[in-house]
């Protein structure tokens, strides 16, 4: 057993920032991560970090753009915290030595990004995430923060109480990938989940293979509601064969999208007459797919992104990384030819429900970064808003977990405030994957003291590992690919009811198959077969919650397009979708969105670009 004040699960941008903040607040911190920190997917972020740094800009404008971008499904207290604190956080990164791109006067450069009313995106070439990840890991090394790398966290150790709001998280159960050891990690003050994205739910994604949403699924099964899971961002410019991301920075610098007829379709077909290529991501993604569906795609699959006219010097200065990616992964030379691009899964706006301090409904359990939903992105995240989210909410969660008084939160979690049950009936049975004994949140044996809870969780996890290793049965890979395929077929950029129902049915089938899953590699050393098998359950749970949300939300908002419901319905749907895991099955309910900020109310307006 290991013991620390604060345990951070995941070591990407949010996890590193949380660990630093908790350590600065006086806590003994440890990070537990299935990848070594520098391998985290934050390193793949390209575009930049939004922050109102200049006199002509203001955090209020940033907040306005973010609320509008979110299609009025962001919660104002979280959005305002993000926009107010991102300038100081960006400057802090600079003070930690982050190599930002520079202006002639030596100041940090800023560039335009989609949906922003001011060029407020700070960046380091087209490798901003890489530089940010390494800069923060350097600070973790400097501070001597303990890192347990290549440990897969299997589960949370949470007390048994009927109401999730009465539960306490005392730590996590980790599996040492190198040796096969299962061990408890006791957290005296708090556990912070910072496990990042869940892109592996889909088969065409910019996300890393490791992005299986482990933290989201763990929190879900422990009883924390999942918020707004149906809002998945599809990035308009990913390489068709691999899903590798081509930064929005290309369009920010002036890159142009063309269809097979050579038309600049964003304008010529009227998708965004003012902002063109720089309309927000949901708008551009739909425009591209519409072009393809109407026969104006190239090879019936993609469109062209052209940056040649920017000139070699500017491209090398600001977008060099893009040249390498296009060349290595698509064989296209961005200096002499346009690059093929199509939409791909990129970011999950929804996730673990938290308030603006990173707290979840379970005492001692926090979440920050992409796995969390505070909610700052609402129905659609603006480019350049993910990296400030990591540092602002990573910091807030770290401080709070370390015991700093941050005042009362304005966002309520769980069913403590106004909420309403959903009236939606699903035609297929949902929930229950099997492969796990009685769990705290599932009404298992009662354990309430920290050691007892942790010991029970470790026993359960060990038993699960033994069972998976001992028996024979199905391979996880076929189940995983079935999930990814049905999600990509039906829960993609365009969604319609029959397809969503079909996916729910396919997921039910995949769940049945998962009950027979087994690991064929018997080794205790670096058993990736076992890790992938456990990840597959996470993917299943997340896919189901996501599809339930998508089916229930009968309107068109932000990234969530529904064929049957082509309007944004503020009267009925200005509310968050929540899915809670209760006694082994998911339950759907809603809570209102908070549009009231510190000094103003963000009145919903039509979103036009």
């Amino acid at each position, binding site marked *: 057993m290991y013991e620390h004040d604060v345990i951070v699960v995941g070591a990407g941008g949010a996890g590193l920032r949380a660990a630093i903040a908790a350590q600065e607040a006086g806590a003994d911190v440890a990070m537990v991560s299935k990848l070594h920190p520098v391998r985290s997917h934050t390193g793949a972020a390209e575009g930049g970090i939004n922050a109102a740094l200049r006199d002509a800009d203001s955090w209020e404008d940033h907040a306005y753009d973010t609320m509008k971008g979110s299609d009025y499904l962001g919660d104002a207290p979280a959005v305002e915290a993000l926009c107010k604190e991102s300038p100081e956080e960006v400057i802090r990164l600079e003070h930690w030595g982050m190599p930002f791109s520079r202006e002639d006067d030596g100041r940090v450069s800023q560039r335009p990004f989609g949906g922003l009313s001011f060029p407020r995106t700070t960046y380091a070439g087209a490798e901003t995430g890489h530089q940010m990840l390494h800069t923060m890991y350097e600070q973790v090394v400097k501070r001597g923060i303990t890192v347990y790398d290549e440990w897969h966290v299997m589960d949370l150790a949470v007390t048994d109480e009927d109401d999730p709001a009465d539960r306490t998280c005392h730590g996590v159960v980790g599996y040492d990938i190198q040796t096969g050891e299962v061990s408890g990690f006791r957290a005296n003050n708090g556990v912070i989940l910072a496990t990042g994205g869940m892109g592996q739910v889909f088969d065409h994604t910019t996300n890393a293979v490791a992005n299986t949403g482990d933290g989201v699924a763990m929190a879900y099964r422990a009883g924390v509601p999942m918020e707004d899971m149906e809002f998945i961002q599809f990035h308009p410019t990913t390489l068709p064969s691999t899903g590798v991301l081509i930064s929005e920075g290309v369009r920010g610098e002036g890159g142009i999208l063309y269809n097979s007829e050579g038309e600049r379709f964003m304008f010529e077909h009227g998708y965004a007459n003012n902002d063109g290529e720089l309309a927000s991501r949901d708008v551009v993604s739909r425009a591209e797919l519409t072009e393809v569906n109407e026969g104006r795609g190239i090879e019936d699959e993609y469109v062209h992104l052209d940056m040649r006219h920017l000139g070699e010097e500017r491209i090398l200065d600001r977008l060099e990384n893009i040249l390498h990616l296009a060349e290595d992964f698509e064989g296209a030379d961005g200096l002499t030819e346009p690059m093929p691009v199509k939409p791909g899964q990129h970011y999950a706006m929804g996730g673990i429900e938290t308030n603006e301090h990173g707290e979840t409904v379970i005492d001692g359990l926090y979440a920050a970064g992409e796995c969390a939903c505070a909610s700052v992105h609402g129905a659609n995240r603006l480019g350049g808003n993910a990296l400030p989210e990591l540092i602002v909410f990573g910091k807030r969660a770290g401080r709070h977990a370390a015991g700093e008084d941050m005042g009362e939160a304005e966002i309520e979690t769980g069913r403590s405030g106004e909420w309403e049950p959903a009236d939606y009936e699903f035609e297929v049975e949902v929930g229950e994957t099997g492969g796990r004994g009685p769990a705290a949140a599932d009404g298992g044996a009662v354990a309430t003291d920290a050691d007892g809870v942790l010991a029970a969780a470790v026993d359960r996890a060990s038993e699960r590992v033994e069972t998976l290793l001992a028996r024979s049965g199905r391979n996880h890979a076929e189940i995983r690919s079935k999930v990814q395929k049905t999600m990509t077929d039906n829960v993609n950029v365009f969604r319609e009811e029959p397809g969503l129902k079909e996916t729910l049915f396919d997921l039910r089938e995949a769940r049945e198959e998962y009950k027979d899953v087994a690991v064929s590699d018997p080794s205790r050393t670096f058993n990736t077969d076992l890790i*992938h098998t456990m990840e597959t359950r996470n993917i299943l749970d997340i896919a189901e919650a996501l599809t339930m949300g998508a089916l229930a939300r009968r309107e068109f908002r932000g990234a969530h397009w529904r064929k049957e419901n082509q309007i944004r319905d503020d009267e009925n749907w200005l509310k968050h979708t929540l899915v809670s895991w209760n006694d082994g099955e998911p339950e759907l309910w809603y809570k209102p969105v908070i549009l009231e900020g510190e000094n103003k109310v963000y009145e919903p307006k039509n979103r036009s670009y």
Partner: protein
Amino acid sequence: MSTQIPQQTDESGETETEPEAASKGEERRAEKRRRAAQERERRQAEEAEKAAADEETVELKVFRYDPEIEGKQEPRFDTFHVPFTKGMTVLDALMYSRDTYDSSLTFRHSCRQAVCGSDAMFVNGGQKLACKTQISDLEQPVRVEPLPHADVRKDLVVDMEHFYEQMEAVEPYFQTNEYPDGELEEQRQTRENREKVKMSTRCIWCSACMSSCNIAAGDNEYLGPAAINKAYRFAMDEREGEEIKQKRLEIIEQEHGVWRCQTQFSCTEVCPKDIPLTEHIQELKREAVKNNLKFW
């Protein structure tokens, strides 16, 4: 496991003066680009030829070893035949083999876009990132082995601890005493200075360079190209200031530091991010001399 050491003979030589090193580095990178362009043309021509033919397969010979499992305790090579698809990388072929034929096949990988640095391997006798190495660029059968000069944990997974320790030995974090007044004021850095350190900041810690380095193979304490490059990244950053630069030079000038480098260029040759590692090492040697530090 293989203990082959790729010999880089054409570029080896004595310590060079700066302009030569720089122009040679330029030439080498230009050559690399030319070769890549030629390769691409060749690949496309081949592709067109093969398009007419029936399904082709790729033959992989993959190193297997697991100290725990009977039958795998003696290292061996397994052969996998993978249906070829356009754009297939070594990583794609390995994943296909694992997911289709043998789920115990073990390797590290994550981002699939050459930025996480976890899938450096020894492919057909060279250190490569599996995710950015196109199968169509390789002779068949494609031989995939773990990185040389590191302990093998299992199959293609090597122990990275030593590499991480060397990285941490150079105090790999920004240090300065002077900050601008005002909380929201950034330090100023000239565009030129950022350009100077830019390449060095691209390191993804894949350890391909360390694995390719003959000197590191023979001297376990040698800091190695990646760690020295990390020191360069800070020593050359004007924001750190002179006093701290001196301290950095002392770290890299120790007995197992920069002077061990014999400019064989193998690190530069294998770096998947095209970082001119050898040049950075040479530049630090020169800085050390300018600062009257001692020679070893």
